[in-house]
């Protein structure tokens, strides 16, 4: 696969996946792209530099698939960068969000998504969190759809196919795939093998598998052989580009 980067062609089969800057890593994201956005919601596990680079790059009409719709202040610590995909919504680059937890928990401090939603400027597909994780997992694993008990008898299952299996009702949910996945990992080697830290693994590991182009923003870059192969969570086959913070 060849992707145009900065006017030149980069051979994506090249096993050295290191990209030297965040702007270069996101340069080819087109208007209308579907982007999986990693992390659970807070600063931990959030691909913040990729998000900032995409804000600068300016791609519009994006569909963002993420656990939240961007929650400023969630899981944030003073002194740490607090950026989430909230900044892309704020900047008018997002037309649709697929999420389980779209709103700020506090109604007095609505996020950019809620303000845009009230004005009918953004679409929402609300998905139970486990269904979201499984739809992404299925997308990466070549499973087109699956039955789940979550959401049966609720608005989430409205107009969806249901089926009784062994005496219990289940709802059919379809796999999610994307053009890009922006993920954040703790350590990577140049082959794209990744490990995560603590609760920052969550959605990142699944999203890495479900996009045509997975870009990993990493805190530490090490030489191949430095990562213990027994503890690699995302094998390099899923990762196209690596950028170091």
């Amino acid at each position, binding site marked *: 696969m060849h992707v145009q980067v900065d006017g030149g062609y980069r051979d994506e089969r090249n096993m050295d996946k290191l990209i030297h800057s965040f702007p270069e890593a996101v340069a080819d994201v087109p208007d209308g792209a579907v982007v999986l956005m990693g992390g*659970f*919601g*807070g*600063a*931990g*596990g959030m691909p913040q530099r990729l998000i900032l680079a995409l804000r600068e790059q300016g791609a519009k009409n994006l569909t963002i698939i993420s*656990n939240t719709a961007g*929650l400023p202040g*969630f*899981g*944030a*610590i003073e002194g*740490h960068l607090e950026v989430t995909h909230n900044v892309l919504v704020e900047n008018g680059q997002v037309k649709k969000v697929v999420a*389980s*937890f*779209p*709103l700020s*928990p506090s*109604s007095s401090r609505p996020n950019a998504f*809620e303000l845009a*939603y009230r004005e009918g400027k953004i679409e*929402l597909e*609300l*998905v*139970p*969190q*486990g*269904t*979201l*994780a*499984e739809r*992404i*997992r299925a997308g990466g694993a070549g499973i087109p759809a699956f039955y*789940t*008990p*979550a*959401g*049966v*008898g*609720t*608005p*989430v299952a409205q107009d969806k196919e249901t089926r009784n299996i062994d005496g219990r009702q289940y709802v059919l949910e379809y796999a999610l795939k994307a053009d890009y996945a922006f993920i954040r990992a*703790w350590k990577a080697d140049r082959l794209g093998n990744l490990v*995560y*830290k*603590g*609760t*920052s*693994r*969550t*959605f*990142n*590991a*699944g999203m890495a598998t479900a996009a045509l182009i997975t870009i990993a923003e990493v805190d530490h870059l090490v030489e191949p052989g430095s990562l213990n192969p027994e503890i690699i*969570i995302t094998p390099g086959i899923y990762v196209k580009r690596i950028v170091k913070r």
Partner: protein
Amino acid sequence: MTSPRLNREVIAMRVARELSDGKYVNLGTGIPTLVSQFTPEGYNIVYHSESGVLNYGPLAKEGEEDIDLINAGGQFLAPVPGMAFFTSADAFAMVRGGHIDITVLGAFQVSEHGDLANWILPTRGIGNIGGAMDLVAGARRIIIAMEHTDSRNQPKVVLECTLPLTGSRCVSLIVTDVAVIEVTPSGLVLKEVAPAWTPEEVQSITEPWLIISRDLKEMEI
């Protein structure tokens, strides 16, 4: 109604008495989060969070927070020996796969049949589902911890939920600031009342008819 209501900590304390040794437990946000502070002495309870961690303990001390160690509510956890981290897909495989023994959740409404509504925010028109729909579909026992009435003093234990459901016929036990109520096939059974409360007083702020347990007790706190 002048009898005093129990505070959130006491509700959590009462819920904690429902936990038994060796259980895997998921706690929702709000009052449920407080339950882990009251783990019965000598019990090993393993707490699970959708943020991808098993066996978490207390919250992190101020100044020792780690952005890579949070619970599902975005609060920072202290590192504890024996923790395990996993992906979101695994977190919910544990939930739907029947590996979580008990989940404690908050609620806006619980019906006579054990239907639960706890995600849509009526004032905002939309809501956060988070992990609640998976939890009520997969956990073995669902306990609700909530105030008995809403901010306009309307009953939250209702005949039928008027708010959109999180799950139907899923709740086992309701612990509130005035009572403990069990959901049974024959109806809601009032098991315990808060100190100074009578069953009649509890009934007066509860929409469905309560069956008064033959061994009705005062909530021990």
